[in-house]
């Protein structure tokens, strides 16, 4: 599949002059993010990369309505974002705290069903059970519904968190360094999983990472943020065909060229 097909249509998420300043504990004004303009096309996969402190997580938290911007406006599907929007679900880096540890894996996914967007959360117990199994199957975790999150490995817990988010039927998925706490081999599997889910559910994904390879492998488009909240430094389209292969894609000349550009930008 090429990205030039009809996937990209209108802007799902629009940032208009959005910036964020904090006041530090010592009373100094700290610029977390200089005002930026960014349109995220509907059903596109956009990665945000940058060094620590560049404001990439702030950008995501603003989109999630967890923080409000110091300047500018954010729109979701044409509606202004004031507080967490219903169509958006957030996948935290810290999966072990985001999952409810006192609920079983199945009940965590059911939590997503019960707090679903634009869908009847009802259905009989049996129908819910089937849906829970369906979403767990989708993230490759069939048969673990009766376990507690604490009994699973980190990668599996993050899969549960993704299944829970999917169960609530969002249009937009925001992921904040979701795989950075997972070992390298599990991470490769999770990357392929998130692409598969993105394609099947026709989601719009905004994916924050500090891993350039991850960003280039996953996304249609990579937005590079400058250090210390300087704002958008580069905005590149990743011209690789899909489906991408973990090995071949990373050896593609276009990929290597882009990787070099972005790396020089971030390191230089």
């Amino acid at each position, binding site marked *: 599949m090429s990205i030039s097909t009809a996937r990209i249509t209108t802007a799902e998420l629009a940032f208009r002059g959005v910036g964020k300043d904090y006041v530090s504990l010592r009373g100094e004004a700290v610029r977390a993010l200089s005002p930026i303009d960014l349109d995220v096309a509907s059903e596109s996969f956009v990665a945000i990369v940058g060094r620590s402190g560049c404001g990439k997580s702030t950008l995501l938290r603003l989109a999630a309505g967890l923080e409000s911007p110091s300047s500018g406006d954010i729109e979701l599907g044409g509606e202004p974002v004031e507080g967490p929007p219903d169509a958006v679900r957030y996948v935290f880096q810290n999966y072990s705290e985001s999952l409810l540890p006192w609920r079983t894996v199945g009940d965590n996914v059911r939590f997503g069903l019960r707090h679903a967007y634009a869908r009847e959360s009802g259905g009989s117990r049996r129908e819910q059970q089937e849906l829970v199994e369906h979403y767990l199957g989708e993230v490759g975790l069939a048969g673990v519904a009766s376990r507690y999150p604490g009994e*699973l490995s980190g990668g*599996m817990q993050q899969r549960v968190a993704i299944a829970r988010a999917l169960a*609530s039927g969002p249009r937009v998925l925001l992921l904040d360094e979701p795989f950075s706490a997972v070992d390298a081999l599990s991470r490769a599997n999770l990357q392929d999983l998130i692409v598969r889910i993105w394609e099947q559910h026709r989601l719009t994904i905004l994916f924050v990472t500090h891993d350039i390879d991850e960003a280039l492998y996953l996304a249609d488009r990579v937005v590079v943020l400058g250090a210390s909240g300087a704002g958008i430094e580069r905005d590149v389209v990743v011209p690789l065909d899909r489906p991408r292969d973990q090995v071949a894609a990373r050896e593609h000349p276009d990929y290597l060229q882009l990787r070099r550009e972005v790396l020089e930008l971030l390191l230089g």
Partner: protein
Amino acid sequence: MTVTTSTRPTEVDEEFETAPEELAPRPARPASRGRRATPAFFRSRAWGWVVVLALLAAWQISAWVKYVPTVSSPERVGIEWWEAITQGGLLLALLDTLRTMAIGFAIAVPVGIAIGFLMGRVRVVWATLEPLVEILRLTPATAVIPVFILFLGIGDAMKIGVFLLAAIFPVLLNAYAGARSVSQTQRETAQTFRLGWWETQWEVALPAAIPFILVGARQALGLSLVMAVVIGMLAGNGGIGYYILMAQQALDIPRLFAAVATVAAVGYGFNALFLVLERRYTRWRRTDAHT
């Protein structure tokens, strides 16, 4: 409020069991784990019980070698205990104390949970009650007994009041700490799933607080038992404390020891019961924490 006094739910007496890295075959851990909790409680402490029995044996042997009346012996205490339970007033005194204690405890737990939890979750409630709670919780309940006697007499009302006062603060402070233990990620998870205020309390904050609350209830029970004895001694009109005081004044050493041992056994029993309950209702924590 500083909650330095409240114990974190992760207590020291834990054995660790590492979480399975990948989906290994499920460890032998049947669904009816709760039923197995009681034997497990004693099995894990078997060696400690050998120590207790060894101390009793040493006491008994020393009594056989040279009997000292003021030290008595386990054998004599045992005989005296049986008589005190079956014919004497020990059982009645104990039940009398436990009755008022149960009433005080039964009021203290829900009230303590409600106040502590709301103080942890609602800023206005905290601001309203924090100084009052801090002053009252640092007032020794023993110091309050004379005041209670003055206003409530020496009947049930005074005793229930003292038990209530003794039991409420451990529950309240732990419920507060539990309500405060909700992490930023948990709070934001609730926000992004658009849970309302009640839903957030019911589905996120209260379950997060439950391990703390159970620890608080267990601490409250220990304090109640202390007060059970003190009340009897200060009010002097019945109950287990009065029974112990009378045995002491009559210099009836075996009866004194029998009564003290009874209080100790009741305390141990209640504590064990609560540990088993904690284990049962915080099963999800058992991948890294144990009774």
